[in-house]
């Protein structure tokens, strides 16, 4: 797929295959969108706009809806229905149902066997495929880049643009190669890789870029691990992160509901194999990390860039030379009620949340279940496990993971975003500390006044058992 012999990156190949009109001095490029994911929270005003202008949805057959953000994860009633107690959330869900039905968009309603977090269901249904353009009114759309798709979050006006025209106006981003060389040690996961990358570049470090994750450690990750990494690209400021597709990718997709079949599969495969970056292609920027030097990571502050190796000490504002950064760190430690120079290991916690589009897939749940099996969650800790989709939930239950979690004293919930965004009543109380497998530790993100330590499912599980922030490797050694 070299064009005129010029080597190209994965991003450039996908970008140029989707430009309806090239960028000019006066106008951004017009990009064709293969798949549009919609959910209840960022779509209502876009549908209203369509109604006001008498427009239809151009390609309902390239659009799919699911309910996830504001939905309860509390148990079903005797009729098998998950009741929605919050009147505003209920109204938003009703509006979403009507919008999808009026405009002919297939949609998975709350409790449906296919419902789940938008970034979990796309891949699991085989809708997410290499070389596609995928958008959603949600910044973690970057998740789908794990398949070698160009996938990014958009605002509600842009949701309206894609609904009406299946296209988007976009200025071409720059590219950054993010190389992760070497192999991960025991107890160190994909989540630790991405937390380390963000700690290194800072939360605005990737603004204006699309990341391409490369190197031995990325190649060795499962698709679910790659999704965890790509998911948090936006926490480094990059709207999209991509991984070149390989046999791991193709094996994952093969046989899924929307995967190509028969001759279509062979044709797709030969196209997908041409997507990886050509030798000699160049990036606008490049960074490198050594996976073998990584330990479990944890955040201490109020943005995902404020992360460190789990055994490190919280940085001191006085050591920060940049004035604005010093103020930011001071403010963050004040909110988190942490002292400069203090260790997080051994810090008592109140809640452990395992879930979110970062870490709620079956392999995340298996990892955590394996760890808590035969152990008990500390009395002082509330542990919630929220599967990313109804399909993940069923799979986990068929493997008995729900029983393992329950026996350990954890809550096993219905699927959804839950405490990642705290819109549905699943939230921290003011002052509480949580170890969370989600992606954002902003002030109040998991509940007003709540304090989040972001970490991997292993670290979260170990901390739940110990009741304090714990390096999972110390408990693995004790096994």
């Amino acid at each position, binding site marked *: 797929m070299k064009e005129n012999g010029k080597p190209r990156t994965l991003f450039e190949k996908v970008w140029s*295959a989707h430009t*309806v*009109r090239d960028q000019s001095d006066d*106008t951004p490029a*017009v990009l*064709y969108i293969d*798949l549009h994911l919609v959910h209840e929270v*960022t779509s209502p*005003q876009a549908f*209203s706009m369509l109604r006001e202008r008498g427009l239809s949805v*151009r390609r*309902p*057959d*390239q*659009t799919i809806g699911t309910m996830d*953000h504001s939905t309860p994860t509390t148990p079903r009633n005797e009729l098998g229905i998950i009741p929605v107690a*919050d009147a*505003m*959330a209920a*109204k*938003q869900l009703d509006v979403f149902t009507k919008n999808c039905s009026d405009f002919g*968009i*297939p949609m998975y309603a709350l409790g449906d066997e296919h419902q789940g977090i938008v970034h979990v269901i796309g891949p699991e249904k085989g809708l997410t*495929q290499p070389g*596609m353009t995928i958008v959603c*009114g*949600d*910044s973690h759309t970057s998740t789908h880049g794990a398949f070698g798709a160009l996938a990014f979050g*958009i*605002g*509600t*006006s842009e949701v309206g*643009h894609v609904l*009406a*025209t299946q*296209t988007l*106006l976009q200025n071409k*981003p720059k590219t950054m190669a993010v190389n992760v060389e070497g192999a991960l040690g025991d107890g160190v996961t994909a989540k630790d890789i991405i937390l380390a990358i963000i700690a290194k570049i800072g*939360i*605005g470090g990737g*603004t*204006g870029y699309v990341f391409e994750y490369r190197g031995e450690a990325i190649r060795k990750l499962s698709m679910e691990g790659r999704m965890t990494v790509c998911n948090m690209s*936006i926490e480094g*400021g990059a*709207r999209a992160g991509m991984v070149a597709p390989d046999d791991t990718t193709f094996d994952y997709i093969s046989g899924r509901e*929307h995967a190509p079949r028969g001759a279509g599969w062979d044709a797709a495969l030969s196209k997908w194999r041409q997507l990886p970056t050509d030798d000699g292609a160049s990036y606008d920027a490049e960074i490198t990390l050594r996976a073998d030097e990584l330990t479990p990571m944890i955040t201490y502050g109020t*943005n995902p860039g404020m992360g460190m190796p789990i055994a490190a000490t919280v940085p001191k504002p006085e050591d920060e030379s940049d004035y*604005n*950064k010093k*103020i*930011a760190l001071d403010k963050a430690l004040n909110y988190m009620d942490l002292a400069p120079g203090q260790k997080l290991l051994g810090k008592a916690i109140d809640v452990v949340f395992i879930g979110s589009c970062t870490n709620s897939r079956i392999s995340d749940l298996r990892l955590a279940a394996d760890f808590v099996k035969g152990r008990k969650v500390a009395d002082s800790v509330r542990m919630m496990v929220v599967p990313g989709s109804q399909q993940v939930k069923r799979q986990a239950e068929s493997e008995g993971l729900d029983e393992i979690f329950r026996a350990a004293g954890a809550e096993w919930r219905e699927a959804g975003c839950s405490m990642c965004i*705290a*819109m549905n009543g699943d939230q921290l109380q*003011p002052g509480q500390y949580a170890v969370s497998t989600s992606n*954002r530790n902003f*002030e*109040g*993100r998991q509940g*007003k*006044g709540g304090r989040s330590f972001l970490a991997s499912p292993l670290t979260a599980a170990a901390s739940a058992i110990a009741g304090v922030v714990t390096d999972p490797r110390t408990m693995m050694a004790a096994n």
Partner: protein
Amino acid sequence: MEKLTHIQGSIVAIPVNDIDTDQIIPARFLKVTNKEGLGKAAFCDWRYLEDGETPNPEFILNDPVYQEASVLVAGDNFGCGSSREHAPWALMGAGFKAVISTDFADIFNNNALKNGLLPIIVDADTQQQLFSLAEEDPSTAVSVDVEAQTLTLPDGRAINFPLDEFSKYCLLNGVDQLGYLLALDEEVQAFEARNPQRVATTA
């Protein structure tokens, strides 16, 4: 969208880096199905005390001397995090017409421009100067000329800021970007004819 050609207004500073969209408008306010009334939720968790209603006297936006401010000066990397367009809706609802920072998160930048909220990028020195000016004299006003892409400070210094041509055209003429895309229907049809559909969600 209304035309935006000039802004003349006083400034207020929140000199905090990385102000994320969860601070600009917390997620619990996203259960709305329209854009109205979000101004009172802007910076809600900083603006009000525990009860969510009593204004926090410590927070700058509650200071009576800054009530007229229409230009917000913020720390680096403003608007990071979630893609919620409720962030510019809330800022505009709270009376802001422009935000000044050293850089903006990509999605926030796009969302702001689509609603006529102007993101103005300045260098770190200018940002610091504006922080000081706002603190020393709450009546400090700036003026913005969108066509010329200039921000004029009280001392008369005019600073150029970047603005892509297309967004500028839309702001100056009060047109939104959808009209442009709708007019490309033939090109989109030709693209679809050349490129087979990738997945069908209805299949």
